[in-house]
């Protein structure tokens, strides 16, 4: 195990350094997954390029949207005042990632770029139609998170591109989000299934399922049904969602159990959204 550690002063310096070293270099955000992969000798980069100190750790809002810097920690998401009401699912997801020691280091950008199908924040961001911002040698580009993710461990990010932030529109007042996670125990657990939902009263419905298959997916048939039929269709939406995803069998759970979880958690997350909208808008 041997790598050199670099702390570039600017984002552009980080990008050009990555361009020179190609596959030999890796960006390091919090490093809570990367360092473990290196220690297990699954990865052996020769250069680590730190993204700390480049001003990427801020969470900010404009009149129309929120922007989460890639280096913002999960702890920062949990405590951000803007994520305590309509967007509480962001805080709910970040709050169950690892223990607090991990949440104080692990970043939002890392959770996305790592492309783990069990990344808890990703389904929530998908339900918010989030857009990721990338910077590379040719400049900046942005694309929907849904198109950024390819499959387990793979995104469309090029090796010399940095994910700088993720952004999404502020939701209307009569809307809500919810995040639910099933694991084998309550804390410090990798999701067996995680589900996020986002409902706008009289408007759109978004539902995403993580940890079921090779990537986190939106379940569009279930969304369309809820948009057409509303609260009466939550149970059926759960059944449809389970039909839309093809869960894996693995050490954590069987495919059959995951199917049951998807149906139950989707229905529950939708019901939670409806209840939250009702409470906040009596």
């Amino acid at each position, binding site marked *: 195990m041997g790598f050199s550690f670099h702390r570039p002063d600017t984002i552009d310096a980080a990008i050009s350094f990555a361009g020179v070293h190609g596959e030999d270099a890796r960006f390091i955000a919090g490093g809570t997954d990367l*360092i473990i992969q290196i220690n297990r000798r699954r990865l052996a980069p020769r250069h680590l390029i*730190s993204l700390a100190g480049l001003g990427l750790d801020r969470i900010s809002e404009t009149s129309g949207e929120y922007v989460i810097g890639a280096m913002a920690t999960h702890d920062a998401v949990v405590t951000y005042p803007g994520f305590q009401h309509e967007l509480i699912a962001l805080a709910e997801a970040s709050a169950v990632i690892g223990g607090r020691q991990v949440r104080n280091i692990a970043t939002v950008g890392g959770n996305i770029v790592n492309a783990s199908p069990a990344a808890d924040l990703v389904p929530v961001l998908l339900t918010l139609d989030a857009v990721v911002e990338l910077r590379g040698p040719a400049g900046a580009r942005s694309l929907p998170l849904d198109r950024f993710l390819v499959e387990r461990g793979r995104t469309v990010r090029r090796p010399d591109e940095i994910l700088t932030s993720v952004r999404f529109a502020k939701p209307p007042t009569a809307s809500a989000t919810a995040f639910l996670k099933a694991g084998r125990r309550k804390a410090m657990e990798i999701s067996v299934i995680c589900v996020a939902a986002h409902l706008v009263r009289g408007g759109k419905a978004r539902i995403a399922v993580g940890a079921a298959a090779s990537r986190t997916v939106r379940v569009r048939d279930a969304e369309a049904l809820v948009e057409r039929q509303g609260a009466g269709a939550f149970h059926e939406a759960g059944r449809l969602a389970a039909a839309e995803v093809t869960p894996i069998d693995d050490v954590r759970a069987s495919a059959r159990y995951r199917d049951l979880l998807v149906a139950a958690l989707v229905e529950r997350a939708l019901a939670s959204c409806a209840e939250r909208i009702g409470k906040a808008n009596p």
Partner: protein
Amino acid sequence: MTRQALDLTINGESHQLAVEPHWSLLHVLRRELGMTGTKENCLEAECGVCTVLLDGKAVNACILLAEQCRGRSIVTIEGLGDPEHLHPLQSAFIEHGAVQCGYCIPAMILTAKSFLDERRGHVPSEAEVREALSGTLCRCTGYQKIVEAVIAAARQLNSWPEEARRAS
């Protein structure tokens, strides 16, 4: 790999070190500085015995590179009170018999400190304490008395004047 110069502030003291880039903060604390109060076990951020405070927040020193701590301030169990002047968490752990084998206790105390410091003036519920400590495992499974000790320490800290709390 060549070593690089690294200044770390640990327990308020500045240390000039020469570190290999792949060294974790845990390695530097235990092997370079002999500060063995911070324990070494799973090395994958699962068990939490390596917990230290980085700029006041609990982190796993096993998966944090020493390089990532450049310019930041670290507190280990060696920096929290001494036998004559125990921190309220340390006193509470003793009073409640919260220490069995003792292996996880430095990490338990620092995890609890980071949690209590974030919510000054608030006495946490048992459920909140259990959640806060969930990243730090006790091999003796002696959680009940640990949780009771943390709640007692929170009460004690809340009764202190603000300046004393800030200095703790």
